[in-house]
């Protein structure tokens, strides 16, 4: 099978996957939100493939994306491979750290919050807290994945200054590959998560099929964030330091170690505007409650992802021609 057919299969696979989930939502509970999800998915597919219906000759959006992916896939592959090789080059355990790191982090935090601070069941009503270790681990994996991606992407333009001023490569590639390699790390840490899940006797059911969608939402959101940060840092280096403070704030503002139930009502309402809360909750529902999140939840996550991606890409595209004068 040639490489381009593989890409075609992958893209059509994703389309079928998204359509499948939205149809499932309509069948399960045919309310307004379910129909909205279905309509949006159909619109998205139409955007990708629509021009094929109008005329045979015009290339579809999908085929243009495919062409770009194919053209730069070797470069992307090399850059991602470089990230992995240099990251683990001189460590004894190598890639094994990708599994080990989230497990050890969880062990430390579990010990501190459960054994020392007796934080278990602070929320009370939330059934997810029954399995606090899993609850905690999902939060840690998702947030640290997001944070890793952002930190890597943030510096991607500035650190590649010597390349950008000497070789012509579409600049979007730099933050994209950084997010990709941190994203692969995130995907790898799903494995230790499932070890803990099985230890907790949470036998996965069909809802696990929706888990990749949750990760996909987070990755698309992170890509947008990465584009935005990497281009802003070129013009104002202060952002690098501000982001460190801001991401710590964001971490504590997200229910990772605590439950949303312990917060005052007003703060709970504000939490609706925290995209990471939605993503983490989305995955927790799948992993702990073994249920597919509602159509409304899915729609909120999708909206945050697409919105952030669009804003980030727009800012990046508007400013990329000026990078070379500032780096």
């Amino acid at each position, binding site marked *: 099978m040639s490489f381009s057919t593989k890409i075609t299969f992958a893209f059509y696979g994703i389309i079928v996957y998204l359509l499948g989930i939205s149809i499932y939502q309509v069948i399960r509970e045919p309310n307004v939100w379910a129909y909205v999800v279905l309509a949006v998915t159909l619109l998205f597919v139409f955007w990708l493939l629509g021009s094929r219906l109008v005329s045979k000759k015009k290339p579809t959006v999908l085929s243009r994306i495919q062409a770009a992916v194919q053209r730069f896939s070797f470069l992307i592959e090399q850059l991602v491979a*470089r990230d992995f090789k240099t990251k683990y080059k001189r460590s004894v355990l190598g890639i094994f750290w990708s599994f080990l790191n989230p497990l050890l982090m969880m062990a430390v935090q579990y010990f501190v919050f459960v054994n020392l601070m007796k934080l278990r069941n602070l929320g009370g009503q939330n059934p997810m807290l029954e399995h606090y270790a899993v609850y905690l681990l999902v939060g840690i994996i998702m947030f640290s994945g997001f944070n890793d991606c952002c930190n890597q992407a943030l510096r991607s333009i500035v650190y590649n200054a010597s*390349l950008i001023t000497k070789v*012509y490569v579409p600049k979007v590639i730099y933050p994209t590959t950084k997010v990709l390699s941190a994203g692969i790390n995130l995907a790898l840490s799903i494995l230790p998560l499932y070890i803990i899940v099985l230890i907790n006797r949470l036998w996965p059911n069909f809802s696990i099929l929706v888990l990749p969608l949750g990760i996909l939402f987070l990755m698309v959101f992170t890509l947008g964030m990465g584009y935005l940060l990497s281009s802003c840092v070129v013009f104002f280096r202060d952002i690098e330091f501000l982001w460190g403070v801001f991401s710590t704030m964001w971490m504590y503002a997200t229910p990772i170690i605590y439950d949303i139930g312990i917060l005052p009502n007003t703060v709970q309402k504000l939490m609706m505007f925290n995209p990471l809360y939605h993503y983490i909750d989305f995955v927790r529902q799948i992993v702990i409650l073994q249920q597919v999140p509602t159509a409304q939840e899915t729609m909120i996550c999708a909206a945050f992802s697409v919105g952030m991606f669009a804003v980030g890409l727009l800012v990046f595209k508007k400013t990329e021609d000026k990078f070379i004068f500032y780096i």
Partner: protein
Amino acid sequence: MDQGILKEDMIRVENVSMNFRLMNDRISSIKEMMTALAKRKVKFKVFHALEDVDFTIQRGDVVGLIGHNGAGKSTLLKIISGIMRPTKGKVWRGANIVPMLELGSGFDYDLSGHENIFLNGAILGYSKEFLHSKYDEIVAFSELAEFIHTPLRNYSSGMLMRLAFSIATVVEPEILIVDEVLAVGDERFQEKSKKRMMELMSGGTTVLFVSHNIDQIREMCNRVVWLDHGKVKMIGEADEVCDAYRKQFLES
């Protein structure tokens, strides 16, 4: 030059101007920006790096670019290779361009020579199949077979340059942009790399070549563009332009 090659345009530089805004001091933090805005001190001078540069390069031409320091040679190369976008005008390219602006700028020093051949090749836009087929040739030309699995940080600077040169010239690109890279390695390797460049040029590659070495330009190029303070002062036959350039030097 071989008259059998059809004369067709490969690069058209059309009325290209490039302006840089020079600020009093570069503002790079929000605080500085705020205070500067408050004091209304965001002034800048406009510096014309290139003004109305207009010329055409045809297939098979070996064009030399000469001029004093700061005449805009490197800026022009960057615009032609697509790294910078000109303020005015545009550049039309008839084929893919392989820029050799600074050798080895894409190297990762923690990776081995073997891994860097693929990384650097990918950055220069080569395909995977191409690199696999040319891998042995690259290693042989660089004479680094013994050290190819050693991390680059243990290489000497000469070895680095040899590797970089071998990767960059393994292609037979339609347009090659070279910014003074012939002085690579020891004398023997310099001879070898010069021979390789000559081979590329006689193979019908279009070359745009920057050097301060007038004798080298005379030897290798058939046409020369003389840039002076961002403007084209003279275009023509290599000997003619080189003579005029040298004459101006003797006068001043």
